[in-house]
């Protein structure tokens, strides 16, 4: 008996099902489109995010026989594809962060009363944070956004990007130091 997270166990069955019947691949879409969309839309904008999320699943379907469960999970595999697609839009991503920096004082739509203080504090940080993201290199930004936005574990990020577990940690550390520095904090 192996110890697995629930997501992995569910994905194993999902993979078995779409290998048995390719039409089952739509189940992969049903399970992960939203997550991939929010990741890509978070890094670019909703229109580009939508395009990239859709393309991710079309590419994943085309390459489904190349997916090897022994090398990692379904979710990291999808985010790896999406991350490669995002990389084609480096300028758009930079413009997106610059726009966020300019519009940084707009309150978040879901700001509840109880979070007002937190939200106000965070709002002051937003322009710097957005500029800091723009200043990261591609590898650092991939790791930071996969961890923060897509909520992948370090192991999943390693699988998604095809880098070692240690590389994920070191890129993340470097990125956070840069972010802290740009925001006026000590590392």
């Amino acid at each position, binding site marked *: 008996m192996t110890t697995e997270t629930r997501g992995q166990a569910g994905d194993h069955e999902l993979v078995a099902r779409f290998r048995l*019947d390719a039409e089952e691949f*739509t189940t992969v879409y049903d399970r992960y489109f939203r997550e991939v969309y*929010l990741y890509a839309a978070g890094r670019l904008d909703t229109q580009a995010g939508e395009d990239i999320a859709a393309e991710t699943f*079309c590419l994943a*379907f085309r390459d489904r026989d190349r997916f090897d469960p022994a090398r990692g999970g379904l979710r990291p595999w999808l985010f790896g594809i999406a991350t490669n697609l995002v990389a084609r839009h480096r300028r758009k991503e930079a413009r997106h962060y610059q726009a966020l920096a300019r519009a940084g004082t707009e309150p978040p739509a879901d700001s509840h009363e109880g979070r007002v203080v937190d939200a106000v504090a965070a709002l002051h940080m937003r322009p710097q944070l957005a500029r800091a993201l723009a200043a990261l290199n591609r590898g650092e930004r991939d790791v930071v956004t996969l961890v923060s936005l897509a909520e992948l574990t370090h192991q999943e990020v390693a699988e998604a990007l095809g880098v070692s577990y240690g590389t994920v940690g070191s890129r993340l550390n470097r990125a956070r130091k840069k972010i802290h520095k740009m925001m006026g904090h000590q590392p």
Partner: protein
Amino acid sequence: MNDLHEIRTLLAKPDPSPDVVARRRQQLRTSMGHRTFRRKARWILLPVAAAAVAAGLVIVPGRLGNAPPPVKSARDILLVAATTAARTPEGSGTYWHITVTKNGQQQAQYWYRRDGQSWIKGEGLKGEGKLVKFGRPAPFMIGPLRMTFEELRQLPDDGNALYTRLRTAVADSDLRTSAGPLNDAQKDGATVESLVSLVSEAPVSPEVRAAAYRALAARPGVQDLGDADGGRRLQVPVSDGTDTVVVDPDTAQVRNTSAWVPLTGGIVHTDGNVTIDTEWTDDLAAE
């Protein structure tokens, strides 16, 4: 400060609209083009057999060369099973509860709500012995067909009408093998698979279960292979050849098998004698 959390907040976007989700799903389906119906790949289900299991027909791989000569016809056995099924009360409850017992030991349990939401519980399954809500509401897999609970309950309770309904659904379903669309014999076989699914695992009425046994009894090519531990071995023509189904005419159940067709689709083989029991219940396991 938690910078990663702040980044998430900074970059958060609203969920995609249902319209976007539906439109992009259609785009994917279009790009998927010809659907492939890869029955030959069914062994791939093996490592996840337990997770996929939901109920039970029984397909014993063809290793029964020394079966005793038939003492009565498969038709007789299936008609007896039909009579038994028709007079077995269905019971009532919120959940269709399936218990998989392997070599006398309870191995896994499954609960299906009428909307297709399921829960699973068993050692080695997701949840590791604890009750886990499994996926989201989904159609029931009846052999190669997908049906909602309402569709299952509206199936005809006459054997011939039931066969016709399922055969039409198979013909309309665009099932394919790697060699192309199913030929007529393969469509007949796929229909038999859905019939076997109905008699073994599906939450259908006693009348429909009886009709499924009668429809099986009327199929050419169904043969009695003699006694099995717990029932009678019957050879049935399926979409990619023949398989052996163990039916107990006295309980109208399928038991002591090494393989079966789960409600989630596909055919699962295990290394032990598996019996599947079904019932309606109001209770999810209290764990």
